[in-house]
């Protein structure tokens, strides 16, 4: 495509900013923050071109993905690797979520990061590039590089700026998620080799390709066939990496540790975007490339998802640390997202994408909210609070809005996502009503643990003298939280705005599932 490389701009702007920050003196915190903020805002503005220029398009007839803003430059021709970028309806809003959260997170560091500010910003900007890279990379090798690269800045953010047990949490985070992705690397290599062998039979001298879209096209057109056992193996290797990242029960135990120790900004990015790398990967790889295996594994995965929904909610209820409570609520909410993905129909997958955005907004906001109190009182124990609403009315109001959005109140974003997911799972022939009979308890329990949080912290008597002098939100905090509230309300009332552009791509994924499976069944004896 001969147009302006807008994706590269969005992708590399934060890195450029990070490089620029190297020139800033280490102790000039204010300047570092301002530059970082400016870069983040510029990235956001640049990324606005994506939804504005995005034209929902039907899938190409050869089965390749209907990508837009495509950029493709040969990179390692002997491997068939290229610098290949592009987005479709699945990744569009995830990129937007990342660029939207970035300035908010950087703005929050004024109040929450007090040491090594410049280096913090550098890492944050590098992390942004890595995350956007995961969403826009359309080459397996490039994807893998970005994927692994997200680990490094995040581990450092936890390990350097984290709480008292930060080194342990950082190491656990790194090792746990890294061991998942090693298998994915094997699967990527396997996929590459098998594809090359399959095509080389017909076209001698075929160099092989790492282009995701091309491999998808080969699989869909039938020139590249995987036998079911191999497909399931590859599916499993990819899935494990994503399931750990999401995290799907029972792979979730790194999450509470990482969240509790991470600085506020780190938690927001972790919950807001990093977990979505997992749900994105499931749609992009597990569903698109391995449809038969996806169908085969769907009920089992859905069972894990439903267990996660209920388990996460019950454990969240029993927490006394606010951050841990929110972390376990993520386990519950991400369970809904996985349930939606493995409903394998349009409602389920669209709901899962939408809910990925919603969860990023609401949970990101919840972590910021916890951070606000932590900065003032240096404790996250529920028991230390009570009656805060009286001294912090604006803060109380915003917290309530965000908590309700997380609890799925209709009119706010969370409900639309959850309902769409549930409808998808209900309609799915593999799942159906028994799954929902359990999953719907997640809706009840979300109200239980979030309102319990609200009741203990904000309601009741203001009896702790240390809380009586608490100041309400300062202007910066108000801006960051209000900015998050806008899409929370907007997506609740007019989700069609986000759901519309993703429909063509989602339909493509789902049709791929249906067609390939039909073809496969004919082939089986």
């Amino acid at each position, binding site marked *: 495509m001969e147009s302006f490389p807008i994706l590269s701009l969005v992708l590399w702007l934060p890195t450029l900013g990070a490089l620029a920050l190297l020139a800033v003196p280490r102790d000039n915190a204010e300047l570092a923050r301002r530059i970082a903020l400016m870069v983040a805002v510029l990235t956001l503005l640049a990324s606005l071109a994506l939804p504005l220029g995005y034209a929902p398009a039907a899938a190409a007839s050869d089965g390749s993905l209907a990508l837009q803003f495509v950029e493709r430059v040969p990179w390692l021709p002997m491997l068939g690797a290229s610098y290949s970028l592009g987005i479709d309806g699945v990744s569009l809003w995830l990129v937007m979520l990342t660029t939207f959260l970035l300035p908010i997170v950087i703005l929050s560091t004024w109040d929450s990061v007090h040491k090594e500010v410049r280096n913090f910003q550098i890492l944050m900007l590098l992390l942004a590039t890595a995350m956007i890279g995961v969403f826009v990379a359309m080459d397996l090798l490039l994807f893998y590089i970005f994927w692994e690269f997200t680990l490094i800045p995040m581990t450092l953010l936890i390990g350097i700026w984290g709480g008292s047990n930060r080194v342990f949490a950082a190491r656990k985070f790194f090792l746990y998620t890294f061991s998942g992705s090693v298998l994915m690397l094997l699967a990527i290599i396997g996929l590459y080799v098998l594809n090359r062998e399959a095509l080389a039979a017909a076209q001698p001298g075929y160099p092989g390709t790492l282009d995701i879209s091309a491999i998808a096209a080969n699989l869909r057109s039938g020139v590249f066939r995987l036998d079911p056992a191999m497909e399931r193996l590859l599916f499993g290797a990819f899935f494990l990496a994503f399931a750990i990242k999401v995290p799907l029960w029972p792979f979730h135990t790194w999450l509470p540790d990482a969240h509790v120790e991470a600085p506020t900004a780190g938690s927001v990015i972790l919950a807001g975007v990093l977990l979505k790398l997992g749900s994105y990967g499931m749609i992009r790889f597990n569903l698109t490339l391995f449809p038969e295996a996806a169908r085969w594994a769907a009920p089992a995965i859905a069972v894990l998802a439903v267990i996660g929904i209920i388990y996460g909610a019950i454990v969240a209820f029993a927490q006394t640390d606010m951050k841990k409570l929110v972390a376990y609520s993520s386990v519950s909410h991400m369970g809904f997202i996985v349930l939606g993905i493995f409903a394998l129909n349009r*409602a389920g997958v669209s709901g899962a994408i939408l809910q990925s955005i919603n969860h990023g907004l609401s949970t990101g906001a919840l972590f910021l909210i916890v951070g606000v109190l932590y900065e003032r009182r240096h404790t996250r124990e529920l028991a230390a609070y009570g009656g805060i609403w009286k001294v912090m009315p604006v803060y109380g109001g915003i917290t309530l809005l965000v908590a309700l959005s997380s609890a799925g109140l209709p009119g706010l974003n969370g409900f639309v996502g959850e309902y769409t997911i549930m409808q998808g799972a209900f309609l799915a022939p593999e799942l159906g009503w028994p799954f929902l009979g359990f999953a719907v308890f997640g809706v009840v329990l979300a109200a239980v643990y979030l309102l319990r949080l609200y009741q203990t912290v904000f309601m*009741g008597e203001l009896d702790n003298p240390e809380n009586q002098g608490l100041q309400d939100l300062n202007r910066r905090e108000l801006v960051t939280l209000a900015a998050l509230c806008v899409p929370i309300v907007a997506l609740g009332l007019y989700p069609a705005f986000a759901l519309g552009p993703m429909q063509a791509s989602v339909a493509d994924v789902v049709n791929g599932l249906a067609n390939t499976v039909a073809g496969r069944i004919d082939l089986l004896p």
Partner: protein
Amino acid sequence: MEWLIWLIPLLPFVGFLLNVFVIRHERPAGLVASGLVAASFVVAVTAIAMLAGLPEEERRIISVGWEWINAGDLRVPFGIMLDPLSAVMVLLVTGVGALIHFYSIGYMHGDARVVRYFAYLNLFVTMMLFLVMGNNMLILFLGWEGVGLCSFLLIGHWFERKSAAAAAVKAFVVNRIGDAAFILAMLAIYANFGTLNFYEVTVAGEVQPGFLERVPEIIGQSFGPSWQPIALATGISFLLLIGATGKSAQFPLFVWLPDAMAGPTPVSALIHAATMVTGGVYMMTRTEALFAASPATQTWVLWVGALTALIAGTAAIAQWDIKRVLAYSTVSQLGFMVAACGMGAYVAAIFHLLTHGIFKALLFLGSGSVIHGTHDTQDMRKMGGLRTAMPTTYWTYLVGAGALAGIVPLAGFWSKDEILAHALSHNHWPQLIILFLTSLLTAFYMGRQVALVFFGTQRDTHYHAHESGRVMTVPLIVLAVGAVIGGAINLPWGHWLTDWLHPVLHEEAGSFNPVLALIATAGAVGMSYLGWWLYTSNAAKVKVGGKDPAYRYTGDIWDGLEEAWYVDRLYERVIVQPFRGLGDFLARVFDPQGIDGLVLGIGRFFGWAGAQVRELQSGYVRTYALVFTAGVVLVLSFMLIFTR
């Protein structure tokens, strides 16, 4: 015309926005909030007048604002409608709502967070209007949960009080249990009808069907295990019934409503008597076609309603708190409405809903006037003899109590009689007896309450009782007039309401049974008098903090009644505490030691294995040679076995 109906919910919403973002002072807040709800009422009257001008079969105005959800298989428009059923609900919500807004100006005067109070109240009216005007289940659900939120906010208005905070959360959570069932019902409706619209509607030039018109399609279908198939209509309608038991405070989910009295009294009047709690009855009436398709569910509905009426009625006679009497009474009366739905007498249910909305709002506002005039006294043992100090409150309260007790010709008499008459003519004997007994209890506890509050002498003299200001007494008078003449909308001879609702519910007017009416009236008068007489003649035995005179004769049974048969305590022991235990176990034992223990164990295993492997690097060539040989043998045998 279409845009006009959008004004009805949007005007209060504008009030909400103004009170949240612009207004900072008490006076403008109250005036704007009340004025906009009143304006909404005027618009509603205009719209309904235009609706009435249409031919009967065309009386349904649907307006779709935008496509709310468009996720492939799932498509739901954001649309509202006005039809005869919505119309009467809209009139009740905006009419009674406006009066209660005005009343609140006086009642909440001087409150620290009064602006916020009016914002919540406006939001409540908006959400209630979406509930009754939604053209599909999801909009209804938006209003349904929205009013739940406002109920939470308003019960918790004085959130410094621990009891208010707990009651607010309890109300929301208990409602959520019903809401979960509601969600399942919606999922099932969409899965089977492909739509959540009530009636056919055109969205962006495309005709979407309505499920109420298609209910016959699922008759005979079933789901569930083959050894116990469940009729689809039964499954869906039963889930809706669970939803209704949450919102309309029916057994077994009624426990939140009495606690909800921790909120300001106008809130109790508006939300927990006149409007929100009737949402379940409205919803069942709206989806009447689904219930009609399942006789099994209908039986459940009937029993739930009748038993709730009785349980709450017995609890109401033993309360000391002036508002808790009314709260249990509300639960009991909602039981009447639900029972009416279960009998298929939907017009009677709506009729009772409307009259009850008026006279119960009157009673709550009256009790608020008493609480206001006695400086926040709610314990009836501290009252007595307020008749002289608060004449307007007394007389209007008397009208309301008479209407609730079912004294002819007040509004409550006609609507309650219609339910009983329907039970009689359709031979629902057990339920008829239960409901009749309940109506006797109703008359009794109202007689008791009037005697305790207004007769005798003031038992606690620490305060000086005074009549409330005009901003509070005028709404009382207006509502009292309504409680007197409200029955006229569906007299056995005119049955205007039945005719008006005919396009929606297709019901014919039932017959009036003079014998039953005579017995019911005699019972009501007799029991009211009995209650009044017992508690005026034994007034000397009522002591502040003491037991009820009846305790001497009933003993612990009276305590049981006061605690509403200990249902709350049962839940505490059987559900809440085990849940806490489970949560603690999972969070402190299973998760860190079970799952995470496994993960860390694997980590340690690799650490240990690494250490072992390090020792293998011994440097002896013969060891390496041995391992190498073993490896080659393994690989070769693997290839031989698996690659043949």
